[in-house]
């Protein structure tokens, strides 16, 4: 492998890893902010507990996103210096704005939130979280503006062979970005929804399994619908009181609703995005369909050697007539160009061979293939939609099953719910891999609306890598970072699992004191308030101290 291949792997691994953390941070942050808002407004103790528990998991995950985000920002200069030189005039601005207008806000106000439980008035404390959460959404906006410019360059003219920004408004309101931002944020909410659903399900199941909650059949012999959930408590165990039941049941149902809303939203925004993409990057959509020949049908399943690039042996097994045309143009009859005819067009417009320029090194003169790796785009597209749909369906089923107030005793259903946490992550990762790999061989894809214009901008990925950096250096960083990411993933998951199994008391040690007081002593009669009295933390300076 040469420096280019290694640099691409390095970028891909860093990005996908970073984007495991980011959606959970954005989605869960929003959920926690809403939970704390409800707590501040209603004073209901279960919402305080939910805020603390989900907030703790949010923080464990947040830091990993921060740590990997720095790599993300620096690698443009490190491994892609030609790219940075080429696009710096327009691409650097959103990155710098993200740091100045979003990162500062996020990290400073999150610090206030973590340590400010006792120092700030409840309203101010809540405001700190909202500001941090809005900061993370703004940060997503700026990053997507930068990325969208790579997908669809606008607002520039060419001076001395490089794009120079002439219209910041066009760059920051790029239609590619305006649909990608809600799509991404809704995708992040899906991650949070699945996360809440799976974990809350586990705890409700645990309560039944441990005999805390029971289900009584009200009338013998009647239909199954006449069951009544009897919420119990385990006085000796921190936090496992009646409030605990409310915490998990509400978390589960909120998670399910959030997951369903997010799927509906991603489907709508995804459709808009797809229509834009047919216009802006027709080859990406053709490759997503493995549609070699022109036509109107959508392939549900295709077979053949998809990697063969020349489309010679790809055959559609199941097709939905007209759907592809509908996805692109809202009608069923418009002919959509397939890979083969697009390949000819691209060759005419951007050349058949890599230009004879020193920046391309050994690649100069090689034939250019304008078709992205089809098995990645085809299956990436299907994985994105499939995982998302699966998560939404699971959420709907969960809502129906839990309407009586608890989950079934079934162990395998619990396992499925926990496993279901990963589906939205898969959808997010697949979506990004699809959109980034589908742009190849360009790092800056050409804007078809500017075809033939002197100001048309595009850049081949092969020209973007740092000429002065050796393959060995990039390989070293690839190995070091990948090993580090793998180790940190183990650590993060271990910590998350520990705190999840610990239940609410893991984030509210003060609950343990209630349990201690009860230990061995008589039960307080169960007035349903749970540990409400004891949920005033000791008066220390650092409520969430390290």
């Amino acid at each position, binding site marked *: 492998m040469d420096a280019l291949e290694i640099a691409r792997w390095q970028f891909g691994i860093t990005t996908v890893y970073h984007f495991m953390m980011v959606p959970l941070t954005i989605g869960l942050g929003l959920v926690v902010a809403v939970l704390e808002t409800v707590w501040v407004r209603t004073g209901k103790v279960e919402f305080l507990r939910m805020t603390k528990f989900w907030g703790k998991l949010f923080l*464990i995950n947040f*830091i990993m996103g*921060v740590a*990997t985000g720095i790599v993300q*920002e620096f690698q443009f*200069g490190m491994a892609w*210096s030609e790219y*940075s*030189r080429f696009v*710096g*005039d327009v691409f*650097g*601005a959103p990155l*710098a704005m*993200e*740091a*100045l*207008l979003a990162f*500062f806000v996020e*990290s*400073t106000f*999150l*610090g206030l939130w*973590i*340590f400010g439980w006792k*120092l700030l008035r409840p309203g101010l404390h809540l405001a700190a979280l909202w500001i941090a959460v809005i900061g993370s959404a703004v940060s997503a906006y700026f990053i997507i503006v930068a990325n969208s410019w790579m997908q669809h360059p606008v607002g520039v003219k060419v*001076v001395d062979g490089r794009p*120079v*920004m002439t219209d*910041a408004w066009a760059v920051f309101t790029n239609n590619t970005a305006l649909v990608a931002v809600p799509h991404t944020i809704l995708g992040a909410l899906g991650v949070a929804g699945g996360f809440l659903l799976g974990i809350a399900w586990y*705890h409700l199941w645990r309560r*039944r*399994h441990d*005999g*805390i909650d029971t289900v009584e059949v009200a009338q013998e012999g009647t239909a199954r619908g006449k069951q009544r959930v009897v919420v119990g408590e*385990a006085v*000796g*165990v*921190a936090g496992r009181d009646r409030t605990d039941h409310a915490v998990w049941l509400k978390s589960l149902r909120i998670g399910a609703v959030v997951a369903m809303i997010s799927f509906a939203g991603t489907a709508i925004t995804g459709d808009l995005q797809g229509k834009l993409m047919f216009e802006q990057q027709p080859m990406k959509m053709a490759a997503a369909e493995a549609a070699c020949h022109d036509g109107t049908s959508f392939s549900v399943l295709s077979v053949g050697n998809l990697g063969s690039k020349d489309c010679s042996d790809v055959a559609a097994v199941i097709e939905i007539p007209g759907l592809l045309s509908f996805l692109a143009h809202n009608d069923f009859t418009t002919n959509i160009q397939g890979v083969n005819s697009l390949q000819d067009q691209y060759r005419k417009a951007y050349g058949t061979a890599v230009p004879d320029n020193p920046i391309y090194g050994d690649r100069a003169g090689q034939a250019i293939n304008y078709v992205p790796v089809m098995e990645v785009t085809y299956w990436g597209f299907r994985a994105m939609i499939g995982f998302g749909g699966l998560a939404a369906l699971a959420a709907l089923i969960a809502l129906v099953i839990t309407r009586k107030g608890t989950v079934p005793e079934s162990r395998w259903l619990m396992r499925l719910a926990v496993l279901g946490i990963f589906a939205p992550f898969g959808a997010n990762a697949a979506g990004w891999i699809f959109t980034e790999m589908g742009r190849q061989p360009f790092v800056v894809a050409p804007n078809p609306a500017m075809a033939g214009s002197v100001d048309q901008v595009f850049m081949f990925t092969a020209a973007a890598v*740092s000429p*002065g*950096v050796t393959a*060995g*250096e990039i390989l*070293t*960083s690839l190995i*070091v*970072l990948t090993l*580090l990411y793998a180790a940190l993933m183990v650590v993060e998951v271990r*910590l998350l699992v520990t705190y999840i*199994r*610990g239940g*609410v*008391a*893991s984030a509210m*040690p003060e609950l*343990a004191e209630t349990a201690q007081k009860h230990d061995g002593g008589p039960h307080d009669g169960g007035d349903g308030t749970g540990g409400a009295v004891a949920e005033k933390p000791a008066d*220390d300076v650092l409520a969430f*101290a*390290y």
Partner: protein
Amino acid sequence: METLPTALGTTWFCAIAVLWLGYLFLEGFDLGVGMHMKLFARGERERRVLLNTIGPVWDGNEVWLLTAGGATFAAFPRWYASLFSALYLPLTLALVALIFRAVAIEYRGKVHSDRWRTAWDWALALGSGVAAFCVGAMLALTTTGLPLDANGDRVGGPFVWLNGYAVLGGLAVVAFALVHGLAFLALKTDGEIRTRAHGAFVRWLPLAVLPLVVWVLAVQVRTGAWWSWALTVVAAAAAVTAWLLGRRGSEGRAFISLAAFLAAGAAAIFSAVYPVVLPSTLDAANSLTVGSASSSDYTLGLMTVVALIGLPLVLAYQVWTYWVFRRRLTVDSIPTAHSVVPAIVVRLVTGKSA
């Protein structure tokens, strides 16, 4: 290509100098406190006091680095591209160190086990030290130059940057962070830690500022002008003042004087190299300058508007954060550590059976 610096280009050169200064000043003390987890702290309670002095603010401080990097990308893409790609390995090392450090701060207290905490203490101390060293080396090389060809690419292999200036710059930032961390601890704690931190600050200050002074002088000798020499004198005077005030027991004033030393020292360095942003040691014609490396005036103008709105806001809420967390910490303010017990041992406790 000889291009004269524009007014906006010069403004952004100053802005980036200010961002680096903000980074060195703010993260300087939390890097120092990180290293002191192993050097200064005695026992678990003290380590937790140290960690909590920087807990609410360290992440915000680190963003100054990201902003300095991002602003360089936006305002001087060629500077960003040449510097970051030439220093590929030391930057990778810095990133790894920063990752370890960030994760250590957040994860150290999350598991109640001595082995776990010791491991993260090392990650935090070494991560802070290595990050400080690499950032210092990178800044020093920015002022003394790298072997760059006409395109701005490094010539001569992955380790060609490794020279005396890199080591000097690395040591300068590490040493400064250590003593700056002590000054911060003296301000943020009370009781025995405060006394010890103050004593160590006074003892180590003269030695700790030395590499930074040598770096400033080295740059002055190479390319200094009268105003940068004047700033050098101011920096030296501030360092002496910090020491004298420290000896008299004025912690706050000593801290401010040390900050003034850093500010004047950094200003002396940046003003001495201006208008060159990254010298080429191969051929002066290959050096990147404010004029040749900057973005278009349109982009710079846009960034100026954003910075004029954003930077005062950032300063305002960061200052407010320090005000909110102004209370001094002692070993008594640290709550008892607790282990996370899985909430699933119910049947043993209740005796109920499923």
